């Protein structure tokens, strides 16, 4: 006899932000069919409306701290915060896209449905408490991005970008599935809390199950590492980021990363924090591996970014470097007792990075020409004279990415380095600080180009009404987190701590 749950058991109310968005996507998909081709702005408005409803709803059920869908979905403050990041990114991306799609001639209603699908995927990823749900969310998050990357299909670069992302993404999914299968084989369950419950017994008996568990965790890390682009799984990033339409790149660099790290943090914090070499150890067995990967990611990302001449490629390598910083937080989670602080630091860092990076891409889009050119670093020459306000904001975003005080990036790095030190990862923290100094070179070079180099100054015709809204929103976010960090920390604290730990 099958144990049939009733519909009330599913506890659907707490899943509404994500479920509503998924259902709303289908509404957008169908309604868009009846919107004439020259009025696609209505689809954008509809999309924005749905995103705002989901955003408000998310605030309302923030600290509900319940499980739903038979224990496969956790609505706690962690998932609430990931929803917050995902929806913020989607709303800003929506503003970024409206005029850009029109002037580059790739305006299609499907863009918005795909954006919403991908956002819903990130939200499910943050709330997943079962490896199956993580996998499905990973696919919901990635598949729309493959299509969106290839959306400028008359451009060979965009096509290459979509194909490359698709093939490597499919590989990553396969790695993840294989890892999940091994973990299932070792523990007999796919539910993260139940995996946690069986880990201690597996460590104690030191059976073959432990080998499978470690191997499975490693493969899952490879799969998610592809998604968040950490070294050595970063090869696709520069090509994909350069070829994809710029709003898609902007969304990819923040939302897909947030989703991947959400799943990684959940897995490490909930399921495997006590996967140690021996009983009584206080450091998880995977910490060294992740620390080494984080160090390699920070070093390679920052050093290779120096030689880039294309801003989109530079921001791609910078996003690899930032993945390294966030991964530092994941490594710190491996020291038992620091998990809470490290998770909080990684989440704040992701929020700060979301605002800053979307802002930087918004300015890049303002300079980008209709044919996709105009994204070289040299194109920034003299921008302070032609568009002073834009130049000020770009300078601020660059300083925030470097991590200069009074910007959001500083707060994120401060918390992350603090957590890593507390976890005893001194060498990793030193590498992090030193590579931050290196990163100043290429971020400040853009400021130098804007303020000190002679040049005509780009008229920045792409800075249209909607794009400006997005830039201001990103600027405001970066500034507020930078000046009043306790706002973000309190927001996270009030919703988070009770739920996750």
């Amino acid at each position: 006899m099958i144990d049939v749950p009733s519909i009330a058991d599913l506890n659907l109310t707490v899943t509404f932000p994500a479920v509503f968005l998924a259902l709303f996507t289908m509404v957008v998909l169908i309604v868009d069919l009846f919107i004439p081709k020259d009025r696609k702005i209505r689809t954008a408005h509809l999309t924005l409306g749905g995103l705002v409803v989901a955003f408000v709803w998310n605030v309302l059920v923030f600290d509900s701290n319940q499980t739903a869908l038979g224990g496969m979905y956790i609505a706690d403050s962690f998932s609430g915060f990931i929803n917050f990041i995902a929806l913020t990114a989607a709303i800003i991306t929506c503003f970024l896209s409206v005029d850009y799609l029109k002037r580059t001639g790739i305006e299609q209603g499907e863009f918005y449905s795909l954006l919403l699908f991908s956002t819903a995927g990130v939200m499910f990823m943050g709330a997943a408490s079962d490896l199956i749900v993580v996998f499905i969310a990973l696919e919901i998050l990635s598949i729309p991005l493959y299509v969106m990357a290839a959306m400028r299909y008359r451009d060979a670069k965009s096509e290459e970008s979509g194909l490359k992302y698709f093939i490597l993404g499919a590989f990553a999914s396969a790695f993840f599935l294989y890892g999940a299968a091994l973990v299932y084989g070792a523990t007999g369950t796919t539910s993260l809390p139940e995996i946690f419950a069986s880990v201690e017994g597996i460590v104690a008996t030191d059976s073959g199950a432990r080998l499978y568990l470690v191997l499975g965790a490693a493969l899952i890390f490879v799969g998610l590492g592809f998604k968040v682009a950490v070294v050595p799984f970063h090869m696709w990033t520069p090509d994909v980021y350069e070829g994809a339409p710029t709003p898609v790149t902007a969304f990819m660099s923040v939302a897909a990363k947030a989703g991947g790290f959400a799943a990684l943090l959940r897995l490490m914090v909930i399921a495997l924090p006590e996967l140690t070499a021996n009983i009584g150890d206080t450091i998880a067995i995977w910490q060294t591996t992740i620390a080494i990967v984080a160090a390699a990611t920070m070093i390679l990302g920052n050093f290779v970014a120096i030689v880039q001449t294309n801003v989109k490629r530079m921001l791609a390598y910078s996003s690899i470097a930032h993945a390294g910083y966030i991964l530092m937080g994941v490594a710190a989670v491996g020291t038992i007792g620091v998990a809470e602080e490290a998770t909080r630091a990684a989440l704040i860092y992701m929020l700060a990075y979301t605002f800053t990076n979307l802002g930087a891409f918004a300015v890049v889009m303002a300079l980008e020409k209709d044919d996709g050119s105009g994204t070289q670093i040299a194109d920034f020459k003299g921008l302070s004279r032609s568009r002073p306000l834009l130049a000020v904001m770009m300078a601020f975003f660059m300083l925030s990415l470097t991590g200069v005080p009074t910007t959001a990036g500083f707060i994120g790095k401060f918390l992350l380095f603090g957590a890593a030190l507390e976890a005893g990862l001194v060498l990793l923290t030193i590498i992090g600080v030193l590579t931050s100094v290196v990163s100043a070179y290429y971020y400040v070079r853009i400021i130098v180009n804007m303020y000190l180099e002679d040049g005509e100054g780009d008229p920045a015709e792409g800075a249209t009404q909607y794009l400006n809204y997005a830039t201001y929103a990103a600027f405001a976010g970066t500034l507020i987190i930078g000046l009043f960090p306790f706002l973000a920390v309190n927001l996270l604290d009030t919703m988070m701590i009770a739920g996750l730990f």
Partner: protein
Amino acid sequence: MALQQFAPIAALIILAVVLTFIISNISTIFGPSNNTSRKTAPYESGMQPIGVGMRRMPVKFYLIGVLFILFDIEVIFFLPWAVVFRDLGFYGLAVMGLFFFILTIGLIYEWKKGALEWE
């Protein structure tokens, strides 16, 4: 579990192999043989078996093929559900109804987009 429980399956496998061997060879042994070049060519569902491997063909076939496979796979999901339909009761009906609803939205979308038109 005792291995004897699997005896019927083993018998079935052996029977299948032996029977296949007999059936596929019996006509060659006893039947009249009158080979022509056309008869000995590999069976390719009516297509020319010899020619360039990378022939051009209308991209419409690809679209129809993808759409067919999509719905084909969705149909597979109905099968296990149908087996336990009675046990699941209203819950199963509601969940499958939702699944079917989402599937229908996909159909409406592709129909309205003109993916089902041949021209």
